[in-house]
């Protein structure tokens, strides 16, 4: 498989990258490690004329930690670097553990944090060879007006399968977008549009350069679990991240975020209200897991049945919370 033709740019500054984005508009794509983009390009699902590589941007591969401000991660940090960082292992071990569940060792050596968060949504009617795609009507994701998965569907239901975004979201992570005009910081969840066809907000000439994760409250338990058919390599068919903080024996805050069940990570609503001031007893675990279950609405667009993936959401959340209860 060969890549389609394009012109490669390796800007050395944000200004230069931002200018290139303004100049080439929709013909240009930003590229981190290329492990998502180049696959889609080889399958001719994306044919940008210009690739703007982020690798040479200043501080893009930096990991820094401040005991007051928290963790700052350049979006060009590779997943292997996340796994091997002593600062992350000491203060945010769940991030390293989650990164080690992504794809394969080779991919983790190449793929970046930014690329993992901004990976495209997937569907069994979309991520196919050009020959295969010729045999079916173009769907929403391919510019058509039809969904093969839900025939009465009026939008694209392609599924978001990022592993790191739900965890960072549960830890109240923020994203910094930079352009020539300056920088702006926003909640990570605001990057997502919720539509499978174009799953992210329109960035214009802004570049996602940094992810910041605040210091979690004292006594916080954080974990991510994913369900997949093989132990390695696979995308999550369902995944759950939980951040749970205690005040002594009672719960101060709990955030649960799902992946692999919708076109964006799903943050479960009103979990804090439910759990505040209570101990992590089996009843509460069951209720939180049930809420996660009822908030997950997977459709039949990746391997395994939607009902099983939905059941797995309940099990994953239960397992994480039981792990937290055991300490």
């Amino acid at each position, binding site marked *: *498989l*060969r890549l389609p*033709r394009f*012109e490669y740019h390796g800007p050395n500054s944000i200004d230069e990258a931002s200018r290139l984005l303004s100049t080439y508009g929709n013909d240009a794509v930003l590229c981190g490690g290329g*492990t998502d983009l180049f696959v889609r390009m080889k399958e001719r699902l994306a044919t940008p004329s210009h690739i703007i590589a982020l*690798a040479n941007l200043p501080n893009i591969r930096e990991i820094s930690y401040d005991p007051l401000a928290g963790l700052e991660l350049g979006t060009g940090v590779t997943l292997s670097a996340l796994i091997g960082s002593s600062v992350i292992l000491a203060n945010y071990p769940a991030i390293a553990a989650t990164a080690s569940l992504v794809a394969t*060792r*080779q991919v983790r050596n190449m793929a970046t944090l930014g690329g993992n968060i901004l990976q495209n949504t997937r569907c069994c009617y979309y991520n196919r060879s050009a020959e295969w795609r010729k045999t079916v009507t173009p769907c929403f994701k391919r510019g058509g007006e039809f969904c093969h998965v839900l025939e009465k569907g009026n939008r694209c239901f392609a599924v978001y399968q990022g592993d790191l975004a739900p965890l960072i979201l549960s830890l109240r992570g923020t994203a910094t977008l930079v352009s020539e005009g300056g920088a702006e910081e926003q909640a990570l969840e605001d990057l997502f549009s919720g539509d499978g066809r174009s799953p992210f907000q329109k960035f214009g000439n802004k570049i996602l350069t940094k992810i910041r994760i605040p210091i979690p409250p004292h006594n916080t338990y954080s974990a991510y679990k994913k369900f997949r058919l093989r132990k390695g390599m696979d995308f999550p068919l369902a995944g759950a991240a939980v951040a749970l903080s205690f005040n002594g024996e009672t719960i101060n805050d709990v955030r649960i975020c799902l992946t692999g069940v919708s076109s964006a990570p799903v943050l479960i609503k009103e979990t804090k209200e439910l759990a505040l001031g209570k101990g992590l007893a089996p009843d509460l675990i069951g209720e939180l897991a049930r809420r996660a279950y009822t908030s997950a609405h997977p459709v039949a667009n990746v391997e395994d049945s939607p009902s099983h993936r939905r059941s797995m959401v309940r099990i994953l959340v239960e397992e994480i919370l039981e792990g937290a209860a055991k300490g």
Partner: protein
Amino acid sequence: MKSHEPGARSQGGGATNRGKGISFNTGTRTSTPRPVTLNVNDEEHTVIVEDRDTLLDVLRNRLFLTGAKEACGTGECGTCTVLIDGKPVLACLTLAIETQGRKIVTIEGLAKEGHLSSLQRAFIDYGAVQCGFCTPGMILSAFSLLRENPSASREEILKALEGNLCRCTGYNKIVEAIEKVRDGKGE
């Protein structure tokens, strides 16, 4: 330093010849080919590449180092595994122009002065090779693992090989061969 002119051998069809009757959009821009100098197996090679050429394209079709294989071409199988700066990566998803100035090791670089490395020897001695297509990638993944972690457990070996698919051996012989080298029984 070796210099390699483009077009010395056909580049294996190219996108426009692939899949008869299907017209791909191959992009509207044609970038100007540019020279890059690659350090492969401690030897410098200057090659003229297109921006879209992957490291695998260059290794196989320009430098004729055909140890790295192309199977899926989309980063799933690991047959194209090479080491860049000591780390296993997928040559099929790495742009050649991005590897300038970095140290690339392919399976051809493991044997020294006509002697196979202990991992290569062990793969032969312990029957870890059947069709052989996955073998270069397997050995490079194992090579990098044992260099980082010479006492890797079986679990760690399996984790390190998760990106290398083998459809013949069932993996047992491969893991055994790696364990023999780890235990110093490779040669």
